[in-house]
């Protein structure tokens, strides 16, 4: 039984969360997601009425830039609204000038409050401008749209009308005031208490801005990234040329190491290594060790071999550690990249990581790094945090936070979870220590302590999950408990803790919690479901049913709760009531496929084919290609002699799933039953079905036998039986006596006793073969002999 479904950390949510994670993975790889969309403009038709008109393209604003912010302003003070658009992609900014021929068809107002009753910005003031075509209203606002703020100037388009009187302002501090002196085509200051609009000096005349399309450059691929703070480096391995076992690259042992990934076919790599070799003395003097790891023969571009790598290293007499990269090392390089950046680019060569003496990644180099650059970056290793941070930013600027001394280890740990869980657990344990210390530091800023608290919470929760995966349920429960203690009001934290307790076998505590929750709030669905789960787990299914029943009473429209209740009733073998719940589920949500499925199966079992058909149709409404529903509905149609419907159903099914042999078999039968026009095609399907699934031979044989021998003449059909039997024997190569016997019965039923007799003879031949020692051989021989006699006398078989 699934666990408390209303808690945000429910395990039943895993598929949902998993699909979110999967989506993010794909986005990291560069997938677009509702991208390539163009900004929209909808034109208000005003007095003409009707819907807004789409003016996106003709507005000139419909760029596919992943637009975010919009801020309107009158750039040149010429009486129309220009707009600044901020974008996610390049160009980050579009300053779009309105080309409207304005003339005097506008009024612009700049409101100023008195700073006493009304704020100076006059935010909240409502302005009414009377015009010959009616009143225009605007409010002064600070912040609208998304992440945006437009100019404080209020802009009024006038169309063909004139300003017909004084402007009225409702000040937010209270009180209305009218302002005289406003006319079309003007820009005015409206100062609270002055009663008269004031025209500020006109903006300076200037050269108009020349429109031009913006051309973002292609991003460069190479980069040097100084990391501040430094993330933990994983352990790397290399394999010496010709050696079979990998060895660890000694890093974090007090001296810096450059881990370099290269290949002999990569020209920039060769230049880089040559340069490092030439400057070996200087680099050594600066304390640097280098490990150059070749990827020759690895990956997709495996055009060269280890030998080529060794040859090049010999040529340049590379004086540092070198050898072959291992898959493990490349996996970990990938993890380092992924953990650092929000976008996953393929590994490009050459690629290097500078690891400091404490085993942390100090810098990354995509593309070649020169010895000169390295020497400069080695100097940075001991730099102050603030200087390091400055070196890490691509463009200069300032910070308001203190430079973090150490990274959030928790956020790196999860990257190692999948492939290297031990590294992950070690990182999380260190994280718990570090963040606890930060949290306990009373001198730290409140948001920094909050951050530490959040990271501590996350670390504890992850440790709980990982320990549980490693089978240490006690440790898992301990960590989950610690996380819960940090966030006692968080239902997710509670759910994780309870799940961990259950895994550790401590049902008593969970029950006590659930009961306490229910005592406080009898309508707590999550707690009641949890209680039911516990009871069910103890085999007290009836009591569990009772609890869920109460929950359903309290939340009668909760579809999934009812579905759960139905399942539990089913488990308690209270099938009728279970079905009532599933029926209620589909009444509440007619597209609940799973409930329809259960109801359809139940209906078939109680031979209510009409009801079952209805449920299958409902499933097909939701999922027109659902195999089970198509097959079920078609079989019901066939049973009701609605052969055309059946044929259509089977055909649809087969068009999605051509390997569904049972459906093909039924299609063949339905076609043959439908009359001579479908016989040939039907036979074809039967043969194909038998070939694809030999198990169908038995079913075909049963059907053919029944058709050939049914005591009720109305249900006998010799021709049909013959067609099926012929296909059966064609597929079986005429080597199965049981199939031959059916064929003979069909032939006899059609009146062809002579052939029937010959068929039985060949069956006798097979069974009579002395090498045949199958059990029941004697009885079969006897039966076949009897049949032979019967057919020779012209008597068909009846019944069995």
């Amino acid at each position, binding site marked *: 039984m699934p666990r408390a479904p209303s808690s945000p950390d429910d395990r039943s949510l895993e598929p*949902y*969360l998993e699909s979110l994670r999967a989506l*993010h993975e794909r986005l990291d790889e560069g*997938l677009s997601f509702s*991208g*390539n969309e*163009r*900004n*929209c*403009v909808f*034109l208000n038709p005003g007095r003409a009425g009707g819907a807004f*008109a789409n*003016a996106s*393209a003709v507005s*000139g604003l419909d760029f596919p830039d992943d*637009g975010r912010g919009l801020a309107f302003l009158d750039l040149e003070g010429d009486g129309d*609204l220009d707009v600044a658009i*901020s974008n*996610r992609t*390049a160009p980050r900014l579009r*300053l*779009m000038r309105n*080309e409207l021929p304005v003339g005097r068809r506008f009024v612009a107002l700049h409101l100023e409050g008195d700073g*006493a009753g009304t704020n100076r910005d006059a*935010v*909240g003031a409502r302005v009414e401008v009377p015009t010959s075509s009616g009143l225009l209203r605007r409010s002064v606002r*600070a912040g*609208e*749209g*998304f*992440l945006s703020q437009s100019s404080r100037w209020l802009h009024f*388009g006038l*169309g063909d009308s004139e300003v017909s009187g004084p402007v009225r302002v409702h000040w*937010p501090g*209270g009180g209305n005031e009218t302002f005289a002196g406003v006319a079309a085509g003007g820009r005015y200051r409206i100062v609270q208490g002055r009663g008269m609009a004031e025209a500020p*000096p006109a903006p300076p005349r200037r050269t*108009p801005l020349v*429109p031009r399309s913006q051309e973002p450059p*292609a991003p460069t691929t190479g980069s040097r990234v100084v990391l501040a703070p430094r993330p933990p480096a994983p352990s790397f391995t290399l394999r010496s040329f010709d050696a079979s076992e990998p060895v660890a690259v000694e890093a974090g042992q007090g001296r810096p190491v450059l881990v370099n990934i290269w290949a002999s*076919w990569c020209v*920039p790599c060769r*230049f880089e290594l040559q340069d490092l070799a030439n400057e070996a003395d200087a680099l050594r003097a600066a304390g640097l060790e280098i490990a150059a790891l070749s990827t020759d023969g690895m990956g997709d571009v495996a055009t060269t071999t280890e030998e080529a790598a060794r040859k090049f290293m010999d040529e340049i007499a590379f004086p540092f550690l070198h050898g072959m990269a291992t898959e493990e090392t490349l*996996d970990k*390089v990938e993890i380092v990249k992924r953990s650092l950046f929000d*976008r996953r680019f393929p590994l490009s060569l050459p690629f290097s990581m500078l690891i400091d003496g404490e085993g942390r990644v100090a810098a990354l180099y995509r*593309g*070649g790094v020169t010895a000169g650059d390295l020497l400069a970056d080695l100097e940075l290793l001991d730099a102050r945090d603030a200087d390091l941070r400055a070196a890490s*930013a691509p*463009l*200069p600027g300032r910070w308001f*936070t203190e430079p973090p001394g150490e990274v*959030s280890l928790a956020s790196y740990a999860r990257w190692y979870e999948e*492939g290297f869980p031990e590294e992950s657990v070690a990182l999380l344990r260190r994280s718990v220590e570090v963040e606890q210390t930060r949290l306990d530091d009373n001198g730290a800023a409140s*948001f*920094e302590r909050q951050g530490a608290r959040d990271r501590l919470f*996350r670390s504890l929760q992850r440790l709980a999950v990982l320990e549980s995966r490693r089978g240490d349920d006690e440790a898992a429960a301990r960590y989950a408990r610690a996380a819960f203690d940090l966030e006692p009001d968080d239902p997710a934290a509670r759910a994780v803790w309870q799940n961990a307790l259950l895994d550790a076998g401590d049902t008593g505590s969970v029950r006590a919690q659930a009961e306490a929750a229910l005592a406080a709030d009898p309508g707590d669905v999550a707690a009641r479901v949890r209680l039911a789960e516990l009871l069910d787990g103890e085999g007290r299914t009836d009591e569990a049913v009772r609890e869920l029943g109460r929950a359903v009473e309290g939340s009668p429209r909760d579809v999934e709760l009812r579905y759960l209740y139905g399942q539990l009733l089913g488990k308690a073998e209270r099938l009728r009531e279970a079905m009532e719940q599933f029926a209620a589920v589909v009444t509440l949500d007619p*597209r609940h496929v799973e409930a329809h499925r259960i109801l359809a199966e139940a209906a078939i079992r109680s031979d209510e084919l009409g009801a079952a058909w209805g449920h299958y149709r409902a499933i097909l409404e939701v999922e*027109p290609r659902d195999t089970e529903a198509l097959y079920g509905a078609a079989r019901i149609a066939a049973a009701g002699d609605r052969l055309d419907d059946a044929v259509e159903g089977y055909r*649809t099914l087969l*068009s999605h799933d051509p390997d569904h042999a049972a459906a093909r078999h039924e299609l063949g039968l339905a076609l043959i039953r439908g009359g001579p026009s479908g016989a040939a095609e039907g036979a074809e399907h039967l043969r194909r079905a038998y070939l694809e699934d030999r198990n169908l031979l038995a079913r075909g044989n049963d059907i053919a036998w029944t058709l050939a021998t049914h005591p009720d003449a109305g249900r006998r059909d010799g021709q049909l039986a013959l067609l099926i039997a012929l296909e059966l024997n064609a597929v079986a190569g005429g080597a199965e006596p049981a199939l031959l016997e059916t064929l003979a019965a069909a032939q006899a039923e059609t009146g062809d006793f002579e052939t029937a007799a010959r068929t039985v003879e060949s069956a006798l031949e097979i069974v009579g073969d002395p090498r045949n020692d199958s059990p029941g051989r004697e009885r079969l021989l006897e039966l076949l002999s009897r049949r032979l006699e019967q057919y020779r006398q012209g008597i068909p078989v009846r019944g069995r």
Partner: protein
Amino acid sequence: MWISRVVVVLTLAVVPAAALAQSRQAEVTPAFEPENFAAAVDPRADGWDTEALSEQAEAQLKRVAAWLAEVAAGRADAVPSGDVATVVDQAFESPGFVPGELAARYRGRAFTVESGSASGADSGYRGAEGFRRALGALAGRLSGDRPPRADFKLYSIDAGSEGFTTLAYFEAAAGAGGGFRQLNAVWSTVWRLPADGAGEPLLLRVEVADYEETSTPRGPLFVDVTEAAVGHNPSYRDQLLQPPDAWLNRITKASGYNKTGWQGVSVADVNGDGLDDLLLPEQGGLPNRLYVQNREGTFDDRSADAAIDYLERALAGLFVDLDNDGDPDLVLSSRPAVLVLENDGSGRFARVRHIAGDIPDSNSLSAADYDNDGDLDLYVCAYRRAYDERGVASPVPYHDANNGGRNVLLRNDGGFRFVDATAETGLDANNRRFSLAASWEDVDGDGDRDLYVANDYGRNNLYRNDGGRFVDVAGEAGVEDISSGMSVSWADYNRDGRMDVYVGNMFSAAGNRITYQRKFERDRQRAGPLAEVQRMARGNSLFAGASGGGFVDRSVDANVTMGRWSWSSVFADINNDGWEDLVVANGNLTQTLPDDL
């Protein structure tokens, strides 16, 4: 785990020219091969059957769009008959794609809007030849001297056993005689499935609804003057023109650079010279930019002088005079805190006056004097709880999540002292809803500012202000708008004297199709009641103020839902006719690989 794909970087600094020439030929492999991911994004792999059909149908429609552009550009022979047969069924029979007559329903100085009905006009287009004639007539509306553009966006599918019907938005644009014209319509298209289940679906019939043409007498209404205005600043090239991929392998996530790119833009006159200036908040690792307008009408980068060039991730700036001294101070929605910076009157913001550290995931900012005491108070939207890194507490349930970050009302107590007044004013009700935007307006005309909050993953809030105490009345006012709220804008668009609100949401064509096609049902877990989940993908909403403080949903009548994946979605009278139009900035993630579903 390691993607076995190795690519050479041409690092010019270390590669002599001769070697470069050689290496270009020998060693450069494509940086990315979409095929690797084709399998991963194949909806069929997940059992999204109708999604697979949708993709096929949309691909076919896009071929039609490409032909249309060719024919409109006078290259009718660029559409070979053999190709037509791979899109159009032999039994194709359809009315025309263009109305027989167009009537102007709006005429203004900037725009003219003409519409007409295409259905039933003429049913005589049969077979491939008929299709060509119908296409030719449509292309006739697009002839001109600018290269035409045409596209379809499929948003609904109804599949049967032998065929299926799709609904798609049709959009095309072209320039002629100095003017500019766009076509919009909805194509309802009947498709035949190929008999053997393999191959592409074929067009049987097209019915065109909502056909409309919007045109301008000259070129487009807006032109891009960014380069002329800010191009002389080094930051234009170094920062504004750099695409995200330039930074995504250069600035770490920990420094605050991510793909999502939630950065807005703010306008204010920071130095009191009467000219509006521009603030661009920036991602982590990049400095915020302040461009100050000079007397020549261009903008100078004053980010460093103004001391706003913070490198922590910022999302939004709000310029408001918080101390009533006549200059705009700056509130900066940043990470891990919200900053309040005092303007010294000359456009310098050297003094940090307040740090609101308990709002770690802030985004949109807005201000109003909610308690009418004469100074401006701040409202900060917050999206997630701090620890919610992907996964731990993702929005649940999807259609009505209340496990997000906590928005905060900061009451201005003077002297740049701010107090969290959220709880005491009642704003903590329904306050964990993944908020993305908020805006203030006196909805009920009682003299205090009410607050509308747009929330992702579910219901929005309309907090009615009753003298400084707030009550969430979104439900009774009819503006809960169960959807993915991202933007709020107020205006009296119908000039009836009551304020109306436009809410930016996500119109997801894929979302629309998926939520109406129910493999989703099984996957959604407790996604929520069907109607609500479907409503999530409808798109933007327009609520017209009604008497008694309520609202009427005019979104569909006004045809303003289809803003696509909308962010800022705001009213603005762009053509000065006295009626507020709507402008929508949209698009979620445009990257190197093709789009999602």
